[in-house]
């Protein structure tokens, strides 16, 4: 007996009726709509948060959304922003860079000190080479020697501090003729009425965005950060990719040092201290995964701007400047939490 023992015939009538009934009830549709909203939030949550902040602060302070204020926030965010762009690239590649803060101190001291000694253009050149050399050290240790990036760059943070002090002998440096040098254009000047730091930040963001989103090299960085072994099996030269991400990060620092040096025209040995955390905060707020393989440049831009606007908004509302540190922390936690909650569809989950 050919027992085709089908206990339930294929797509039975009952099944079809059930499906129709479900569609009529509309329960399924509603659920789908919620899912869509949740997934939009998951992807664009950072934008929504940004909009909410702008609205919130503008209710409390009418100066907040004035063009002057917006420009000023963007200008002061540019230094951290430029560094955050480079660090985003490193993080997407699956590593960390905690050395950017003390690297900024070093590079700023160097460029400011050399400015009067050998002239602005050579000073910039020498500083650029020196900064890239520091980035190359990171890149060699992490990319080629495959050491843990947290340890390497944390070590570099301290080593570069030492280097800076050795170079300057502990003395502050400044530029004497602050009004005459063309070097002032980077920090104090404008291009087409827009402050130069904003222009630099914007151009850097656009270039790096194009690189990450549309070039083969960008693709290789995502692949390396996402699964280094699979990337190698796909012919990606992992060491080279990681090495280059650290050079990019160092370039960001060098540019930030030019902006900072030109703006302040002088430098203490520890100007960059603590910048690494602000930079990382901007990167995280932008939703870049610290595990590597995911994130976008333009969201880092928004992350950095959110930080800037929060700090500015708090000042305008009359809080002491140190309150911003606490608030920043809360915002980061909320951002990360909402991001992950939207992805899994609920606030707390036993499975990740």
């Amino acid at each position: 007996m050919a027992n085709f023992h089908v206990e339930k015939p294929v797509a039975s009538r009952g099944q079809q009726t059930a499906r129709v009934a479900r569609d009529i009830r509309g329960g399924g549709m509603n659920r789908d709509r919620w899912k869509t909203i949740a997934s939009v939030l998951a992807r664009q949550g950072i934008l929504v948060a940004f909009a909410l902040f702008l609205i919130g602060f503008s209710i409390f302070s009418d100066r907040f959304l004035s063009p002057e204020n917006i420009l000023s926030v963007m200008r002061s965010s540019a230094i951290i922003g430029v560094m955050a762009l480079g660090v985003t690239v490193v993080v997407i590649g699956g590593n960390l860079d905690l050395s950017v803060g003390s690297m900024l101190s070093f590079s700023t001291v160097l460029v400011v000190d050399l400015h009067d000694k050998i002239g602005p253009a050579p000073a910039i050149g020498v500083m650029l080479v020196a900064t890239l050399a520091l980035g190359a050290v990171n890149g060699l240790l992490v990319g080629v020697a495959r050491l843990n990036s947290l340890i390497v760059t944390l070590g570099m943070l301290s080593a570069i501090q030492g280097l800076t002090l050795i170079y300057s002998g502990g003395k502050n440096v400044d530029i004497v003729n602050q009004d005459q040098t063309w070097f002032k254009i980077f920090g104090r000047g404008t291009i087409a009425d827009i402050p130069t730091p904003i222009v630099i930040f914007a151009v850097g963001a656009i270039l790096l965005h194009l690189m990450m989103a549309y070039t083969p090299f960008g693709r290789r960085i995502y692949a390396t950060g996402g699964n280094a072994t699979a990337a190698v099996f796909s012919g990606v030269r992992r060491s080279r990719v990681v090495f280059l991400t650290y050079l990019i990060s160092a370039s960001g620092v060098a540019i930030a040092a030019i902006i900072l040096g030109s703006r302040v025209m002088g430098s203490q040995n520890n100007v960059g201290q603590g910048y690494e955390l602000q930079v990382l905060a901007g990167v995280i707020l932008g939703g870049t995964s610290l595990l590597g393989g995911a994130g976008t440049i333009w969201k880092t831009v928004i992350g950095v701007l959110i930080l800037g606007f929060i700090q500015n908004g708090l000042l305008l509302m009359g809080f002491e400047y140190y309150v911003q540190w606490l608030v920043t922390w809360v915002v980061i936690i909320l951002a990360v939490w909402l991001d992950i909650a939207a992805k899994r569809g609920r606030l707390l989950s036993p499975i990740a």
Partner: protein
Amino acid sequence: MSDVAATKIPALQLKGIVKTFPGVRALDDVTFDVRAGEVHALLGENGAGKSTLMKVLAGMYQPDEGTIEIEGTPVTMRTPLEAKRRGVVLIHQELSLAEEMTVAENIYLGELPRRSLGRVDWKTLFAKSEEILKRLNCGFGPKDRVGALSIANQQMVEIARALTVDAKVVIFDEPTASLTDAEKVVLFEIINDLKARGVGIVYISHRMDEIFTLADRISVLRDGGYRGTLVAGDTTEDEVIQLMIGRSLDLSRRQHAEVKTGEVALKVEGLSCGKLFQDVSFELREGEVLGFYGLVGAGRTEIAETLFGLRRPTAGTIEIDGKETAIHSPADAIAKGISLVPESRKEQGLVLGMNCRDNITLPQVGDLTSGPFVSDGAEIAIFDQYRDTLKIKTPSWRQAVGNLSGGNQQKIVIGKWLAMHPRILIVDEPTRGIDVGSKSEIHDLIRELARSGYAVIVISSEMPEVLHVSDRILAMYHGRVIRRFTAEEVTEDSLVAAISGIEQEQVA
């Protein structure tokens, strides 16, 4: 018609289960039950919804609609731990162990025995684990680090996990995909033992022989819908496949038509790599499929990795197109026209968080540019081509590969390397996790590639696969080529004898 089990209340019953993901209705009104003391096989094509259904069962996914009943009582299972406490344990398709921890910790993960102040009670932990491992006849101890174990042994750890509770239902999701035949025998003994003790088993596999050895009943899913249940004793392979894919398959052995081979594409002489393999020599011609058969650990994968620039040979030479060369890195191998479909899709084959298209084009992304930028059109064209050739099931190219079903992930890896149009194609366990229909299509594809001039190496632990696609077969044993066969002369018995070392004479 005798159906003894039908009289019992099912140990576990799923009714009207619906589960959707963005763009995919993975389960659509599925009904399924498991009875105490039976093996219930769940079949379906890649992406049919088998793993998803089991994850619903084991508390990893919440169904959008539908009910789960355990011994007649409706339950909701919010977490895997909760499911486990209710006696439902899932052994995953993709292993999910904490590699840096010991075997014992993994077995009792989430439920480590405690002493006062929440300290782990190591003594009890190791003793209890030891006992379970003994029951499973494992060749490793509770204190070994999981990451150091072979895949098969890791699988055993997963199984050991299931034995810590008084399981009512144990689910095996493609457990044999990476097991050797000997290990399979052990696994089947365990399953039969569980069954005899009244545990209900759900068994997912794409291998028909296993299904018919083990299963009492067979249920089939297709495109997320429930297609029916058959009693294993009363049905045939053909009937099951018919229900699964809607048509019959011709699974007969290939007729060996005359192969037209061309130039020698690859010549390997005296190749050795430390203790992994020694003195391996062979020639591979254009238009030919060379099969490597042997036990896991016989050195086949290591040879492939050496040819792909992932390992340095310690002796011997490699010639490509008559010229001796050294292969320094995968990038170098790719430039020399070699592709490798690696053994492990999750670790070596895919960037799981990346979308389908970008995974397929990754090895050649540098050549798909217009100006400095990657050409979207070129990439999508490649993706579309291989989605169609390999019937990859995904809502769009934007889907992250990690969200595809296991078999469809494997197809992405194959597509990625076919898209390179290599001169020499090496595939290592190419059809792991792939359903019967697609499997025979991939075999045909490999033959087709050879006919059009590719030189192909197939490494497989599945004898029918090697027999089916190869023109010549090298049998490996303990790192050496122990025998060479041509397709005409090879028999299953001689192959088995060779790879188990029964036949020690080396035929050059």
